[in-house]
């Protein structure tokens, strides 16, 4: 009876996950979708705590530890999620993702030790046990493989997410050295070899009933921890050389990794809700990753080998052409007397926390009868949709956000384009220069507009590390400074007009 209720809890959990993801795909239902998934998750968790029984019908114990852990994790999680600034959202997602990966890896470590312990109990050098033992071997082999896969994927996801987190909040710089890709491949190879070796060694240990087992077990254990360490190292090395501009893709990929690691737990405990949830995220995350790569017109392989950072070094050396600056009051006049203004937000806006100032400017211009819209590039900022979230925080209306295709149709009839800290997504080199590393990436065709005003902190190249010839175009003027300060000054100037 109790077990049947647990099954129903899991069923509800699985359905809510699918439903939740589906509802998340529509702005009108998204919030409800998230709550529904959260409800299903709570049911599955509570059901597990109170109703779970193992194969022998034993209940779970250690309730104090379980509730203690949930209390600590829940408190820290809620506080962190409530306090994080909207600009730091991508880091936060990366961090939480890493926690999930670490959780999966730890489960694998505990389960491996249990498995080894079980094995050493069955390691009884009586010949009559031989048949029974070899059957056990067969069963635990699959289990071992799942444990190893969960361990490796979980560790890579954890280590990689932590590096991505560090890179996004600026504590870790891009770092690559010669032959790094070879080293990565070597680590991957070593991990695979470790898994294969463990699989073979475990079955060997059983065919030779009696004898060398104790040493074999110690050896097997150290190989296991070796694989663990290599997987962690691989996670670090794998993300290290990838440029900051590609972090969204990496986080999305690691997100789907953690999904697969969670699904491994589902295999291990024959737990359907873990399986459905994990595979669902694994599949969806992989597709999202591919979609994001497509938005940048690059293949996933290209992103992962990290050729962005290294290959563009030569292109970055190119001197930037002459550019002209515009004064605040001139910019204010140009915008206040325009008919149509398009604002192109980028990462610079997010860093400066300028979304509210931006909205104020937009309101002020709208009140003066200017038609103001936002042109949102799908990979502007540090995550797809990052700009939407930021502008939503500042109460910018949905109707004013234009996606790339729409915006590109409107640029020819636009008087002024105000670019706020965006760079690569408006770089014409993506269209004109086949040698450029971003060649082929769809961009916002801001050069079709009559006037372009670019706000940047300096002439330094953007994330991709390449020069932007847009800045030396005749119709472009530069407005240097921190986005927030510049916007506030602009507002003050326009008010005086």
């Amino acid at each position, binding site marked *: 009876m109790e077990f049947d209720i647990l099954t129903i809890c899991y069923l509800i959990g699985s359905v809510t996950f699918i439903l939740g993801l589906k509802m998340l795909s529509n702005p009108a239902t998204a919030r409800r979708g*998230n709550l529904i998934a959260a409800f299903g998750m709570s049911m599955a968790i509570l059901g597990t705590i109170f109703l779970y029984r193992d194969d022998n019908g034993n209940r779970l114990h250690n309730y104090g530890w*379980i509730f203690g852990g949930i209390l*600590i994790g829940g408190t820290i999680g809620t506080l962190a999620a409530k306090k994080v600034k909207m600009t730091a959202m991508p880091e936060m997602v990366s961090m939480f993702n890493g926690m*999930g990966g670490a959780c999966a890896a730890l489960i694998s470590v*505990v389960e491996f030790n249990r498995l080894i312990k079980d094995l050493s109990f069955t390691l009884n050098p009586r010949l009559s046990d031989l048949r029974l033992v070899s059957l056990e071997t067969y069963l635990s082999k699959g289990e071992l493989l799942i444990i190893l896969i969960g361990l490796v994927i979980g560790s890579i996801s954890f280590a990689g997410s932590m590096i991505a987190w560090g890179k996004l909040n600026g504590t870790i710089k891009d770092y690559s050295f010669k032959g790094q890709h070879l080293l990565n491949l070597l680590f991957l190879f070593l991990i695979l070899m470790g898994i294969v070796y463990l699989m073979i060694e475990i079955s060997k240990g059983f065919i030779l009933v009696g004898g060398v087992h104790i040493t074999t077990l110690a050896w097997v254990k150290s190989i296991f921890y070796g694989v663990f360490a290599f997987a962690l190292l691989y996670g670090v090395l794998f993300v290290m050389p990838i440029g900051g501009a590609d972090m969204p893709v990496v986080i999305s990929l690691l997100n789907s990794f953690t999904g697969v690691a969670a699904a491994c737990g589902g295999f*291990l405990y024959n737990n359907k809700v873990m399986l459905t949830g*994990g595979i669902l995220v694994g599949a969806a995350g992989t*597709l999202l990753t591919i979609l994001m790569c497509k938005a940048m017109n690059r293949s996933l392989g290209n992103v992962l080998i990290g050729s962005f950072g290294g290959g563009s070094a030569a292109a970055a050396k190119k001197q930037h052409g002459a550019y002209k600056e515009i004064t605040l009051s001139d910019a204010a006049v140009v915008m206040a007397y325009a008919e149509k203004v398009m604002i192109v937000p980028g990462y610079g806006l997010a860093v400066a926390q300028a979304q509210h100032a931006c909205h104020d400017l937009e309101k002020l211009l709208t009140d003066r009868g200017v038609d103001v819209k936002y042109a949102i590039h*799908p990979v502007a900022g540090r995550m797809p949709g990052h700009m939407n979230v930021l502008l939503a925080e500042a109460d910018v209306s949905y109707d004013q956000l234009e996606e790339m295709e729409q915006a590109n149709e409107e640029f020819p009839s636009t008087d002024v384009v105000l670019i706020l800290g965006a760079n690569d997504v408006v770089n014409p080199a993506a269209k004109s220069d086949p040698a450029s590393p971003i060649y082929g990436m769809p961009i916002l065709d801001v050069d079709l507009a009559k006037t372009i005003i670019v706000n940047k902190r300096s002439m330094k190249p953007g994330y991709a590390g390449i020069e932007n010839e847009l800045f030396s175009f005749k119709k472009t003027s530069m407005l240097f400074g921190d986005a927030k300060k510049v916007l506030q000054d602009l507002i003050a100037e326009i008010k005086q007009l």
Partner: protein
Amino acid sequence: MNSFLNWITANQQIIYIVILMVFVGIEVIGRVPSVLHTPLMSGANAIHGVVIIGAIIVMGKAESDNYLALVLGFLAVILGTLNVVGGFVVTDRMLEMFKKKK
């Protein structure tokens, strides 16, 4: 070869679930407009926090003298809860802002 076929038969339920879920995951995501990509990634991130169930089982099964399992299991429960709770709360915060302007 034979054992592999046996394995497929023995685990066919799980194999069916995996295949169907792969398609469901792809279908569900395919219709998401790019404006919702960040909340979606965050929501999916919260859902894979279901790994916490594994942590609870590990914790609940650990014998009281097995300190390795107790400590690692406890840590796993904390990390898993962080993933679940943090993930859902962050997603809700993002979506709350989307709603306001309606």
